[in-house]
């Protein structure tokens, strides 16, 4: 089986977010970049599937040269080779169009990615890739097995789950607990340096949304403390002050 895993290069969850240039650019100083956590679940499942049934796992990232450490980490976790589409990932439609252009010539059986990236939280790339390629997409997938050329999945819904079946090829937007999260070992880290990483130039994509600027939420006021001996006072405040009861 030929599996493609699309990964995003995103600020670590614990990053403090701030902006520069009149709120038009992310302030990247002090930010550590990681593989999108949902994408990392997808990668872990791809490697498990390969270990169980053979095949190849290729990772793909739409990003400029500075994302290569993140791609190398995916190779260290166990992907066989990598593709970097040399472009700034400006929005979901742009990223999905780049992915679809690469996939068209390669015939992957399974395209895995996270349910959303943790920077823009758009949750659109899987669906757009599926639509562009004319193949099914399912998200958010919590369990995925391949049986007789079909994918059997469990998909999260509000307050429960659905068991879903689809023919390959398929795009899946993944989330936990789809796989055990894998930590690269020494051998993986060493071999990642020599695994192939192909750089592909992007295709032109028309713009239909334009990012203008960013804003930080208003700072939180101080937390009002209530004495533990009279916790019922909380409800007066919730009713009369916060007006949420």
């Amino acid at each position, binding site marked *: 089986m030929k599996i493609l895993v699309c990964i995003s290069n995103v600020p670590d*969850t614990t990053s403090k*977010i701030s*902006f520069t240039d009149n709120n038009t650019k992310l302030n990247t100083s002090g930010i550590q970049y990681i593989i999108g*956590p*949902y994408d990392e679940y997808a990668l872990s499942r791809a490697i498990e599937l390969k270990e169980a049934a053979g095949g190849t796992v290729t990772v793909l990232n739409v990003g400029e040269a500075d994302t290569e450490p993140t791609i190398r980490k995916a190779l260290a976790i166990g992907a066989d080779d990598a593709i970097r589409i040399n472009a700034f990932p400006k929005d*979901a*439609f742009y990223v*999905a169009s780049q992915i679809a252009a690469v996939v068209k010539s390669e015939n992957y059986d399974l395209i895995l990615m996270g*349910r959303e990236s*943790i*920077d*823009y*939280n*758009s*949750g*659109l790339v*899987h*669906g757009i890739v599926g*639509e*562009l390629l*004319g193949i*099914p*997409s*399912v*998200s958010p997938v919590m369990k995925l097995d391949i049986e007789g050329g079909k994918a059997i999945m469990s*998909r*999260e*819904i*509000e*307050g*429960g*789950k*659905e*068991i*879903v*079946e689809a023919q390959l090829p398929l795009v899946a*937007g993944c989330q936990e607990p789809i796989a055990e999260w894998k930590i690269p070992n020494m051998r993986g880290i060493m071999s990642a340096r020599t695994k192939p990483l192909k750089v592909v130039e992007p295709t032109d994509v028309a713009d*239909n*949304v*334009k990012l*203008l600027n*960013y*804003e*930080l939420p208003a700072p*939180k*006021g101080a*937390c*009002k*403390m*209530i004495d*533990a001996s009279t*916790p*019922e006072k909380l*409800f007066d*405040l*919730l*009713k009369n002050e*916060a007006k*949420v*009861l």
Partner: protein
Amino acid sequence: MSVLVFVEGAGGEIKKSSLEAVGYASALAKKINTQAVALVIGNYSDDQISSLGKFGASKVLSCKNDKLSQPLPMPYASAIAEAAKKENADTIILSRSSVVDAIASRLALKLGAGIVTNVVDLPDLSSGFKVKKSIYTGKAFAFYDLTSAKKVITISKNAYSAVEGSGSATVEAFDPQLSDSDFKVQIKETQKATGDVLLTEADIVVSGGRGLKGPENWNLVIDLAKALGAATGCSKPVSDLDWRPHHEHVGQTGVKVSPNLYIALGISGAIQHLAGVNSSKVIVVVNKDPEAPFFKAADYGIVGDVFEVVPKLIEAAKALK
């Protein structure tokens, strides 16, 4: 020209988040001097369907095709696209949900529309079509201009309040053309928790963390939730330890919630947990550790032992009625 809004249901009821979307669509329609048309797919009572008029829809398209009895993204996207064309809709509004991401992405492509998800406010139309979107899991906002002729927007839950008025809507049957190629995914089984308040739709959420010590103490969380008519949630270790089901796990890797009131009992407030709750309107924290990071994100705090404080809260909550 019109604004089309997709209405989703759960368990035979129209979702509160969809009513918010209808309200949003109707407010937008007013701004641009047009009407809001709601598309409802599924078997709902006549009362439920016509009640959409009270939330601002001028017209409701009701689609009861059996082939669409399950919420499959591909045929739903096709059906909504067809309705958008029929109603000459320039803007299509959906409320974000586990199924809407997959629908909205395909819908935007079918219409050649620009799309922005997680929108938290009405568009600013003073120059262009400017929307505000929540990013970095609630840590910031981004403003986008949708420059395409057609636009698809998904709004975040609780970003817009649904207000019931006295309007009424005309109801029209709608039966879209369905193509076999849209049925490549099949739902074999649906497993749903019943009877509880749905976590993602709830106005109030009471969550418990590892501070509860074990599943045998969960009655504290459940009883407080019951007394307040709230849904229950938990932190990740709690679901990892199987004290509570996975679908209750709130946070970055779990469910994201944005209720009016979030009450956290014995939860430290790690950044990954906050990422799922920081767009709640009001946060209350009970933790015995005054240094717990959750107090920095909270509006009201009680430093105390959950085993002493929560029983008193339950009594007081029962007395509220």
